[in-house]
Structure formats: structure tokens, C-alpha cells
């Protein structure tokens, strides 16, 4: 009898203890291209997300619940992205997914999350992802046309009329090319050359020679490393004195390193504020977030934080805000994210609405110029 009593009381204590400590964990999923051609996106995204989840869990979780993160590597492959999204939803029972890293993968995953009603916060920039707005799909990087508009605004200020485009033939480049053409036509620019290069090309002098024949006032290059760095070097080698704009896709120190400080001198580009935060005014609303992210990332991984990792950082903050404010079911998270107003993040200040599932505007970028191997504000 005594034994039974002891056993019972032990059981009871155990039960009570688990009931107090473990509110059910919140399961979230991450889908990133950690390896493969888009690893420059996926790797910092994965690291940022893991860092944040550890941080939150160390502080006791959110509303008493720990966060359980499952990250899968899509290798940048759409078929794998679809399989792994299904796995996250059906096997791991996640309430929300952050990722994938590229536009193609995101477009492939959208039909699944819409059907299964799980909120997806994409880390890809393509405009098609949130335009038109889909019920369960959000994204954190600013639309490409925001960066394009920023460049054209700057070009108009410098009275540059005729432009040459040099874009990479992947989803990032073709989206930028499309947006640039539309916006340039609207704002009265003439496009005198429209050249394309392939992501693996190692020499672009042919395209640049052709462009120089068209005598543009400025060249706009749209791509991610290493292509744009090659172009910057080629331009210098050819001795052409045409002003060069790059896209936000190369807004990291890596670009200056690859192109060489000498060749990169004077190149202008719209950059997320992370790259230049220590040059911004102190009353900038994003300042605390940028500083916190950069310092935490440096402490955890020993390297500078990148704009790309910031996409996952913002995704997690949106999710966290929604869980705190509304609740932790997929439906509540979705509603919570949509109600986000003026949330400062790494990529900009987010204000979502039923029709805008990106929530960023022109202020997401700063126009910067490269001078002596470092950034300076171009305004």
C-alpha cells in the first residue's frame, strides 16, 4: 500500500512538473538552399534563424513555449523544395515555414502551403511571390522594383537619360530586367542596350564592348556575385568611363573584395541598410535592429552579418510578433503577420495589409557609392 502511494505521488509530481514546464512547443520549419548554387543565400539564412531560435529559447521561449526549429536543405532545387515542404507540414507538423531562398522554389511551394493552410514567409525577392497577394504567403526581401526605382531616381537626379542594361539570365536577373524596362519606360528613360550574361560566364567584355557602342549615359548591371564583380573589372580593363550601377544583389563587402577596390571605385548601388548602418543617422528606426543583428551574428559566427541572412531574421521577427500578439496556430500566425504595422526589421520597416504581403517601400534601400574600398552614402 505504501509503495503504491509513493508510486502514485511520484507519478503525480512528474505529471504536474511537465504540465508546468512544457507548454506545447511551437514547431516551425526552415527551407533554405544551404548548398548548391544559391548557398550564398541559404547559408546565412539558416545560421541567422538558428541563432535567433537559440536566443529565444535561452530566454525561456515565447509565451512559455519553446520553439522547435527544423531546417532542411533544398539545394536550390524546386523538386526537393516541394518534397521538403510537404515533409515539414505532414511529418514535422510545423505551424509556419520560413523560406525558401529563391523565387523559383517559392513559386513551387506556394500551391502546397495554400492548400495545407500553413503560413509561408519567403526569403526570395521575386515580385510574383506576393503580387497578387496570396492568403498564406508573405515575403521579407524588398521587391526588385523598389531597388530598380531607387536606381532610376538616382539616375534622374544625375540627368542620365539613356541607359544600358546588363542582366544575368537567372530568376534574379530576369525579374530585375523586367522591372527596369517597365519603370524606365514610365519615367522617360531610353534603353539603348539590353544585354544578358549567363551566371557562369567569366568574361563580359563582349557585352560591354557592344554596350559602349550604344553610348549610354550609365550602365545598370543586375546580378549576384561573381558576375557583377567580373563586369566591374572588365569595364575598368576596357578603360570605359561610363557610370556603373549595380543591384542590391551585391550589397556586401564580398563584392568589393572580388572586384578589387580599384575597379569598384565609384560604382553605385541600392543597398539594404545593414551594409551602411554605422553611417546612418542615430534616430533611424531600424538602427537598434541592425546593430543587434550584426553584433549577435559576429559573436555567434565570427563573420559580418549579410543582407541575405537578414531576410530570415525578419521572417522570424514577423512570426514571433504574430505569436506574441495573436497566437500560435497557423491561422493566428497568418492573421498576426498581416496585422504587422511599422515593425523595424533588417530589410526595412514592415507594414503589412491584406493586399500587401511584403510591406516595404522605397526607404528600404539607401543609395551607396563605393569609395576607397568602402561604402559611402551617395545622396
Amino acid at each position, binding site marked *: 500500500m505504501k509503495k503504491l502511494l509513493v508510486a502514485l505521488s511520484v507519478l503525480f509530481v512528474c505529471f504536474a512538473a511537465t504540465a508546468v514546464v512544457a507548454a506545447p512547443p511551437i514547431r516551425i520549419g526552415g527551407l533554405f538552399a544551404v*548548398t548548391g548554387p544559391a548557398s550564398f543565400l541559404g547559408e546565412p539564412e539558416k545560421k541567422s534563424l538558428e541563432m535567433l531560435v537559440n536566443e529565444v529559447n535561452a530566454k525561456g521561449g515565447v509565451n512559455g513555449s519553446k520553439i522547435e526549429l527544423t531546417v*532542411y536543405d533544398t539545394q*536550390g*532545387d*524546386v*523538386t*526537393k523544395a*516541394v*518534397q521538403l515542404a*510537404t*515533409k515539414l507540414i*505532414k*511529418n514535422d507538423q510545423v505551424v509556419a515555414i520560413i523560406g525558401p531562398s529563391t*523565387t*523559383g522554389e517559392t*513559386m*513551387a511551394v*506556394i*500551391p502546397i502551403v495554400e492548400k495545407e493552410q500553413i503560413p509561408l514567409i519567403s526569403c526570395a525577392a*521575386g515580385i*510574383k511571390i506576393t503580387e497578387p497577394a496570396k492568403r498564406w504567403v508573405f515575403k521579407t526581401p524588398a521587391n526588385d522594383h523598389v531597388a530598380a526605382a531607387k536606381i532610376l531616381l538616382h539616375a534622374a537626379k544625375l540627368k542620365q537619360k539613356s541607359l544600358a542594361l546588363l542582366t544575368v*539570365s*537567372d*530568376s534574379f*536577373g*530576369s*525579374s530585375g530586367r*523586367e522591372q527596369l524596362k517597365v519603370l524606365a519606360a514610365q519615367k522617360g528613360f531610353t534603353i539603348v542596350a539590353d544585354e*544578358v550574361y*549567363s551566371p557562369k560566364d567569366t568574361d563580359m567584355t563582349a557585352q560591354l564592348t557592344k554596350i559602349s557602342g550604344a553610348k549610354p549615359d550609365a550602365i545598370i548591371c543586375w546580378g549576384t556575385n561573381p558576375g557583377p564583380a567580373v563586369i566591374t573589372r572588365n569595364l575598368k580593363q576596357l578603360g570605359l568611363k561610363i557610370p556603373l550601377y549595380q543591384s542590391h544583389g551585391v550589397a556586401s563587402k564580398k563584392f568589393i573584395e572580388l572586384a578589387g577596390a580599384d575597379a569598384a571605385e565609384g560604382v553605385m548601388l541600392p543597398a539594404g541598410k545593414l551594409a551602411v548602418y554605422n553611417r546612418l543617422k542615430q534616430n533611424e528606426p531600424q538602427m537598434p535592429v541592425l546593430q543587434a543583428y550584426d553584433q549577435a551574428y559576429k559573436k555567434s559566427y565570427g563573420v559580418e552579418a549579410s543582407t541575405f541572412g537578414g531576410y530570415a531574421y525578419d521572417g522570424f521577427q514577423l512570426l514571433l510578433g504574430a505569436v506574441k500578439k495573436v497566437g500560435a496556430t497557423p491561422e493566428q500566425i497568418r492573421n498576426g503577420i498581416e496585422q504587422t504595422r511599422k515593425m523595424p526589421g533588417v530589410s526595412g520597416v514592415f507594414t503589412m495589409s491584406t493586399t500587401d504581403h511584403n510591406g516595404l517601400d522605397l526607404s528600404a534601400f539607401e543609395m551607396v557609392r563605393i569609395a576607397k574600398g568602402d561604402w559611402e552614402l551617395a545622396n
Partner: protein
Amino acid sequence: MKREVVKFIIFAALVMLAPLPLKQSYLLNVLVFVGINTLLAVALNLLLGFAGQISLGHAAFFGMGAYLSGILTANFGLNPWLIIVLAAVTVGGLAFVLGFPILKLKGHYLAMATLGFGIIFYIVFNETIGLTGGPSGLPGIPNLAIGSLTFDNDLKNYYLIWGVTLLTILLCVNLAHSRIGRALRAIHDSEVAARVMGVNVRLLKVQIFALSAAISAVAGSLYAHTMTFISPTSFGFNFSVELVTMVIIGGLGSIYGSFLGAALLTLLPELLRAFRDYDIIAYGALLVFMTIFMPGGLVRGIPDLMLFLWSRLTGKRGGNAQTG
């Protein structure tokens, strides 16, 4: 022949029963893609395993099927079933025409030529943005449907795709055991000898190339309707190489070997996820191990391995008895 019938029936029964324990889990989704890859591997095996002609451009035929189905149904609203047939005929026809000049080449030169057209089509998928949507892909492809039955979940797609795959396997088993199959093997061993025996080598090679391409196109169409989204990265050079790997790992000239190869290469990344960040190393190491120790592919390697282990086990006992 009777043995072949029994083998096929057992295989088909296993395939049909496989989803029962799985219900709606994620694995079912992976098995759908195993089905598509099996279809592709069987198609390539006809060419590579039986006729002994390499193709490093089969992803292009797969892609053409996918894009024909995708574009004509998503943008023009045509009947998807009709398009699958149309895509198979068009791609098969194109391969037939391409086959005459290309299949004159041998060995490395044939590999180069097929590699070349694979890359050309990859560039076409990427650059004709108006039609294919370019690198950002082509969304909004409808699911297949018969009347009110829409193939919109994994279970339905599983039966649809495996139905087609089983039919194709049946066709290929028959083909392999027919006069054509024997002629193909003769070409594989010696083209001159085959010609001497009265086989129209040139025509037969081109025909099997066209058939292989047509089956790949059907796989492409099914892939497009299952995924409802396609983008060029799925149809690049890497995938062509992956297909060749499936056929070789599975066992050249064995139809069920193609299934084993496709299943292994599709499922292996899932099984190796336990290795976390080192999964790619484990994957590579396994492939190297298999090609070194199972040169006949899985289909011969697995029985050999079992036999070896068995003899080792029993042999050791025998050896001990002798020395003792």
C-alpha cells in the same frame, strides 16, 4: 517468359500495395517522384543499357514534355491528356530527326553531342521568357482530371504515375524479350556483327532513341501536372547526369535495376539526412563504393552481396571445423 510475367505481377502488386501503410505521409510524396524517376531511368536504360548508346541530354526531353504540357495547358487551356500524347509524339519525332546525325557518332563524341543539345534546350527554357516564364518558372499548371476525379493529392498522383510507369515497364519487358530486344543487345556487343546478321543498325538505334525520348516526354508531362509548377533548373545538365547514374547504379540492361537505381537515388538523400551536414559526403562515398564493388549494378550486386555474406558465414564455420 513465364518467369518475367511472375516477376512483373509481384512487382506491380508491391507497388500497388505500398501506399497502404503510408497513408498520407510525406514518404508517399517522395514515392511519387520515385515513380517519375523510374519512368525516366527505364527510358534511358533502353538506350544506354540495351542499345549501348549514351545520352547526356535526356533531361532536355523530360523538360520539353514538361514545358509543352505546362505552356499549352496553363496558357492556352488545351486538354491536358491530348497534350501528353501530342508532347510524346512531338518529342519522339524531334528525337527521330535529331537521331540520324547524332547517333552516327560513337563513344565520347556521342556523349558530347547529346550533352550539347541538352545544354541548348536548357538555354532555350531559360531565355524564351515570354513562353516559358524564364528562370522564375511557369506557375499555374492544372492537375490532371478524369471527369470529376482530379489528381490533386499524393495518393491519387501515386496511382496515376505508377500506373503509367508499370505500363511502360511492361512494354519495355516485352520489347527486351522480342526480336528488337535481341537486335539491340547485338548492337551493344558489336555493331558490325549485328549488321552482318541483317539488323538495320542505324534505323533501329534512331527508333529506340525516339522511343526513349517519347517516354521521357510523358514523364515530363506527368511531372508538370503533379508539381503544377516548373522551372528550368529541374531540366539541366545535372539532372541528365543523375539519370545516367540511376541507370548505371541500378544495373545496365535491367529494367527492374532501373527502378532500384531511381528509388535509391531519390530516397538516399532522405535516409542520409541523419548525417546532417555530412550527408553529401556519405552520398558520394556510397556511390563510389557501389560502383567499385557492384560493377553490375544493384540488381546483380545485392544478390551477390547476400550470397557472399552467406558463404562467408557458413564458410567460416566449415573452415573452423577443418582446422579444429
